[in-house]
């Protein structure tokens, strides 16, 4: 079968690989119909995530048709059309019982690696390095789905692939980011980054009752989408100081909630952004935290900073004093996709959200290398790439 494989920094290839097989009784094999490239795949593409190995199959946003099920699977049958959450969850450990699915205790075969780094290990993730389990990803014609009685969700035939594909990651991720803000009616929410997750955070903040959403970015096409979803936009490359701007826009108080939908590869114009670029290039720092610093600095006293953007290691010069001094609440982490998926599917069915709006590039698996490149370089007004297998 065809699969998109990682070979190193800026090097992905479409190659022929053996098809996956059922390994455990709770497995299923899904024939992928549509898959997407995630912003967090760009962290792999950029070589920022350790424990990737040459030949690893990428992709954690995918959906398709069940073609085979393991002996213990009774909830799915061959022919079912499903979307598959990106974290792999056993459904039976204490964390899954608390609906903390991305913190599953049992789905990461290489848990000891993350334990050494983080104290405890999170769930395994499709196509996202060996410290997250080394599972083959979904940018392929077929994928093996472990714990298939927990992960895959059936979707109605009335909805197209493009309408439901983003339930696998970015819609729930944007939604959890907004829910983590504990939005009160009328709150002002500032969102750093108008990429796919930022856009869904903007939409979700409004669904959850925000009075105003202010979005920061520098790419016109992304800010245009943000405005179409109801946000006011600030071009940070155009203003002298994002903090002053936000302060002014909020009557001197600051945003009630700030969402960092950028993560470890932030760009910026200020001194600290260049400092990060230098340290990251010299391998002294894994993450560039410019957006996070600005969010912590800009948030109002007693406000909440929610972080759906991915960070991997140690970050430098974080204004923790500001977070403490203003009594901020910080919330973050990998998305508990399984928890949010059913209600968000309902939102799509009701027409509250049209996820297809953010898709700018459509192709097949063969287009993956080119799409990775233009997505990373933000060329051709690229916001979101969807690949079909035909």
């Amino acid at each position, binding site marked *: 079968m065809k699969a998109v494989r990682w070979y190193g920094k800026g090097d992905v290839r479409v190659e022929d690989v053996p098809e*996956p*097989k059922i*390994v*455990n*009784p*709770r497995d299923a094999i899904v024939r992928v119909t549509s898959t997407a490239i995630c912003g967090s795949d760009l962290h792999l593409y950029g070589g920022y995530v350790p424990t990737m190995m040459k030949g690893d199959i990428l992709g954690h946003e995918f959906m398709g048709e069940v073609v085979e099920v393991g002996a*213990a699977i009774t909830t799915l049958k061959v022919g079912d059309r499903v979307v598959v959450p990106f974290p*792999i969850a*056993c*459904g*039976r*450990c*204490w964390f899954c*019982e608390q609906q903390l699915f991305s913190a599953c*205790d*049992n*789905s*990461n*075969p290489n*848990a*000891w690696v993350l334990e050494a780094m983080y104290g405890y290990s999170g769930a*395994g993730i499709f196509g996202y390095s060996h410290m997250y*389990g*080394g*599972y*083959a990803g979904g940018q392929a014609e077929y994928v*093996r789905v*472990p*714990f298939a009685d927990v992960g895959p969700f059936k979707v109605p035939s009335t909805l197209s692939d493009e309408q439901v594909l983003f339930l696998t990651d970015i819609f729930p991720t944007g939604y959890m980011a907004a829910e983590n803000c504990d939005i009160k009616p009328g709150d002002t929410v500032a969102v750093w980054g108008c990429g796919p997750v930022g856009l869904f955070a903007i939409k979700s903040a409004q669904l959850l009752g925000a009075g105003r959403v202010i979005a920061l970015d520098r790419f016109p096409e992304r800010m245009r989408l943000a405005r179409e979803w109801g946000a006011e936009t600030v071009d940070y490359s155009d203003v002298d100081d994002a903090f002053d701007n936000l302060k002014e826009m909020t009557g001197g108080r600051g945003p009630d909630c700030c969402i960092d939908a950028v993560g470890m590869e932030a760009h910026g114009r200020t001194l600290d952004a260049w400092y990060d670029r230098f340290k990251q290039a010299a391998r002294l720092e894994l993450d560039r935290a410019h957006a996070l610093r600005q969010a912590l600095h800009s948030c109002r006293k007693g406000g909440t900073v929610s972080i759906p953007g991915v960070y991997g290691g140690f970050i430098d010069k974080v204004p923790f004093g500001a977070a403490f001094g203003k009594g901020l609440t910080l919330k973050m982490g990998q998305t508990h996709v399984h928890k949010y998926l059913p209600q968000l599917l309902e939102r799509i069915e009701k027409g509250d959200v049209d996820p297809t709006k953010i898709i700018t590039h459509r192709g097949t698996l063969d287009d993956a290398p080119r799409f990775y490149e233009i997505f990373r370089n933000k060329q051709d007004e690229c916001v979101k790439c969807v690949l079909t297998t035909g």
Partner: protein
Amino acid sequence: MIEATTPPPSAANPNVSNPERWLSVVAGTAVAAYGLTRRSVSGLVLAALGGGLVLRGATGQCPVYNSLGISTATDGEGDQVSVPYGRGIRVEKSVTINAPPEQLYTFWRNFENLPRFMDHVKSVSVLDDKRSHWVAKGPAGSDAEWDAEIINEIPNELIGWRSVNGSQVDNAGSVHFTPSIGGRGTVVKVVLRYDPPAGVVGATIAKLFGQDPAHQVMEDLRTFKQLMEAGEIPRVMV
């Protein structure tokens, strides 16, 4: 953690076991030969180190062991202990499992289940109510075999065992099933002591090559948890 326990030192007699003496000679020769080919100061230091190992093997006297008060030489201790005090390696690890003690104990007590989650154990055959025969993966592709007997048992709480005389790998251990605080399931703790064939030095060398027994026990316990909670062991096809 690997820790060598300390007996009274024996100055005049050999304090290194026979297999370990051979290992010393072989490893020492290799290190010395490599060091001599380097033609550098660091090479000379390596050569001297290798020479020391050869001497240690030839004489059966280890100055490091002496100063640490360790002896791995056979000293005819009583037959009542599988791993005599002052010898071998002790590992203690625990894991919390989202299941009641009865369920975990029952699964474990059926020893023939153990190879399902103990990576290095190839098979366990139950001989009678107390005794079982174990086959484990040994170093360099060899197998190690021994008979074990239960020496202490409280249903749903603990199982203690030891290897019987004539074992290839003398070992003793216990597994404890304790309800965790706040209804968080069961803490399963394993305490294991064993006398590796190549001695503590051999085990330390093994650790350098990724065969750390503490890590091994921890991974086995994690696999036990996965099997008990999720009903299967997450694996990735290679």
